[in-house]
């Protein structure tokens, strides 16, 4: 309940509680007369929920049973990276060296306790001191203007690389790196999405990174939401794999990393259900950066503690939700677990509407077919598509 709703509800019930006699208007009348909420201000994620497990399937108990969050990044030919939590710390946020150091310390502490997460960073933390050695996988971000040589990465040995895809030159860079680097290479396609996915996967990239905040600013996705981006990215990867031989073992297929508007546990779960494999998580960077706004900035170790505790809380949340949906493995979440109360969300992510199993498109199709057979006519597929396009307003 937002504040306006709360006010109306309280007023209505208190009036009844005071007088014991009928009112003139109902709660719904008053809510209907409220000034229209700017629909752009409400995030489409809020209209999407997941359906839980109860009778038809039993829920698992995250406090008493093991829920797996493990995931492996890397295709057949690469040296693989294993994460215990499907998050890679990602930041389209400018932070200074000491904030990054705090994140590094926190990730080390988490890894020591068996919670291995990844980090994407262009800058590397100086780890010459033994107790500072990196215990988590680093995906080193290669600036796109860099030359093709891999030499300078040989010293620091990142577990994986991230290349930003901008143009043909990026493709050449990917080809060169693929020849020399045996760890996973993730390609950030946010600037060019949805193009080039197939080409990039064919050149042996182990996965793609899609930042929904950046993509929804592009012309092609104007007015659309992260849901559409994740759905299209998932389809692009699935299409690449149709009919290929590699698809007999989940661990070997390309990883879809989604970043952007996925910075809370609820959104992480929903994004995973729509199709993400790993989430590029920015909140840890935000926490580190927020220290800059403090009147009395804390030291690196305290900030690291904050990031550490925050991540433990997040881990608890993203374990609890799949367990309540009946899964003992986070990666078994699927789109059939989601429902939505928005036609827009149903269209963008092919999500069924609440109260049934069918998406908006399927419901319209059903009505079209029902009406057509009632009238004894047959529509060919092109004509059905025309009706659909009209209904969805394209």
């Amino acid at each position, binding site marked *: 309940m937002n504040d306006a709703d709360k006010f109306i509800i309280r007023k209505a019930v208190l009036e009844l509680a005071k007088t014991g006699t009928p009112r003139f208007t109902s709660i719904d009348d008053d809510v209907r007369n409220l000034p229209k909420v700017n629909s752009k201000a409400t995030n489409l994620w809020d209209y999407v929920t997941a359906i839980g497990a109860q009778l038809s399937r*039993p829920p698992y108990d995250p406090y008493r049973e093991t829920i797996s969050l493990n995931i492996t990044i890397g295709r057949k030919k690469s040296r693989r990276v294993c994460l215990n939590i499907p998050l890679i710390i990602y930041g389209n*946020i400018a932070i200074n060296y000491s904030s990054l150091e705090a994140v590094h310390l926190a990730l080390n502490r988490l890894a020591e306790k068996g919670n291995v997460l990844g980090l994407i960073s262009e800058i590397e933390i100086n780890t010459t001191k033994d107790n500072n050695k990196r215990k988590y996988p680093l995906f080193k971000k290669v600036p796109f203007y860099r030359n093709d040589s891999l030499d300078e990465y040989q010293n620091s040995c990142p577990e994986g690389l991230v290349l930003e895809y901008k143009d043909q030159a990026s493709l050449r860079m990917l080809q060169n790196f693929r020849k020399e680097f045996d760890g996973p290479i993730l390609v950030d396609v946010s600037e060019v999405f949805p193009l080039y996915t197939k080409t990039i996967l064919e050149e042996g990239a182990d996965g793609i990174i899609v930042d929904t905040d950046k993509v929804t600013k592009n012309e092609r996705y104007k007015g659309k939401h992260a849901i559409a981006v994740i759905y299209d990215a998932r389809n692009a990867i699935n299409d690449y794999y149709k009919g290929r031989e590699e698809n007999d073992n989940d661990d070997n297929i390309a990883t879809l990393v989604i970043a952007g508007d996925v910075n809370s546990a609820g959104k992480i779960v929903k994004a995973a259900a729509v199709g993400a494999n790993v989430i590029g998580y920015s909140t840890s960077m935000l926490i580190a950066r927020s220290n800059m706004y403090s009147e009395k900035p804390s030291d690196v170790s305290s900030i690291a503690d904050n990031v550490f505790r925050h991540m433990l809380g997040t881990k608890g949340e993203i374990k609890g939700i799949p367990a309540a949906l009946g899964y003992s493995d986070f990666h078994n979440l699927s789109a059939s677990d989601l429902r939505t109360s928005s036609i827009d969300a149903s269209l963008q992510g092919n999500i069924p509407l609440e109260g049934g199993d069918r998406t908006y498109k399927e419901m319209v199709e059903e009505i079209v077919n029902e009406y057509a057979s009632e009238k004894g006519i047959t529509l060919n597929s092109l004509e059905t598509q025309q009706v659909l396009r009209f209904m969805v307003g394209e």
Partner: protein
Amino acid sequence: MPYSKDILELKRHLLRAAESSNSYFDLTKLIVDVRKINDSEIPYSGLGARSPNDYFPSIKIIGSTLRSKENDDFTTYKNIDTKFTLGGRYSTNLITSDVPFFVSGMSYGSLKLPAKIALHLALNRLAKEGIKVIMNTGEGGALPWELYGSEESWSNVSKKRHENILSYADRLLKEHHLESTDRDSLFCRLYPLITQYASGRFWKDPSYLLNADGIEIKIGQGAKIGHGGLLPGPKVTDLVAENRGIPSYKAAHSPSRHLDILGPEDLVAKILELREITDWRTPIIVKVGCSRVYDDIEIILKSYADAASIDGFVGGTGAAPWELRDIIGINTIPSLKPAREAIANYYSTDNKRDEFRLIVHGSVWDSERIAKCIALGANGVGIGTGFLLSMGCTLVQDCYTNVCPAGLTGSYEKLDIQTSVNGIVNYVKGTLLELKNIAGSVGRQSIHDLRREDLIATDELTSLICELPLVNGRTFKDPIKEMVKTVIDNRKNLKEHQVDEYWRMKKKVE
């Protein structure tokens, strides 16, 4: 929630960092992150989730009024029938109430004793005035006067036990500084009581099942589907712990599922067991949260239960993990259609119509919402937050802490019991009168005669999901049918003006 200075400062810094970053952060939810930073625990919240679309305001009852005129004497529709019965499908006894709504399960522990006493006294007073309202104990066990509120219930109790029960009641009253309450008059129950059989099994006394008028097996609730009952540590006081049989001041996480009900066949076995224990007398209800509604209702129909109870995800709770509460489940209104379908399909193969009842919970606060639920197919409605509001709840949503400004779920503020009792009594009476007015103004003799045909939708989505016509008489199927016709007639691309016409019509409706 009275957050500490450190937490508020953290939040302020986080807010500034988020506002100046390029990434999207939900600024209203930053407090969740701050709480995780503070203690690395999963943050809880109280009451219901916020759904940006809960359908109720998009439905209108054609021609209904809550009140006909300024000096209405409220007797015009006084003979409208609003009774509700439950049971009889497999049980020999029936529960009858004079209103089609009742108090949803709110446990002792989650609610403090003064609030529970207020509800008890209010329902007694209403019963004396001829309005019986059903109460549900919630999962934390029953209070002694709820189980032993009649002569009959004492008949099998030994003298020693009788004394123990009364002294326990004294201790309860003393703990909450309510010694002045007349204990003996408290031991009187004039309203029907349903006890809740939840996964935590928080009771120690067979009378919990034997002295109840109904038993509700709680498989799940809307606010935390798939997650067991939850009472945070600070709220498990010594007496709450004693009532439930658990250690005090330790968080009580009930199991996510009944350890002996893992699937539909186990539910059948459990219900048959309860029937044996209660001699087939007591009506049994099964409560689930709204998620896979069709499948769950289908299972409940086959399991020898008398009624099914579904709870929308916006339903309230004392404590639930914040994110889990907000994202799991579906709304109350869309659940009614699959529930009704499951019931209709089940009875389509047999020709009999029996006494199976469908009860609905989840953000139903006033009479108009109750009427809409009944028109869409519910037989009865459970109200939780509405009763809290009538006692003075301020919707702060801190129920999981021990700090409640209204004194309902926390120990620090004092609840004025008499005012609360008056509030509840007035709320029930006012709602009852409104229900009669709604049914009467639509021309029905009973509230249960309201039908889907009495409703219209004001937006396309509600029209589609509930299969209701729109305000201007059209249905969601009409534009589709027209477009099919156009496509057939032209068999080529759509004409421009038809596209414009459709969007103009759509804008008029919204």
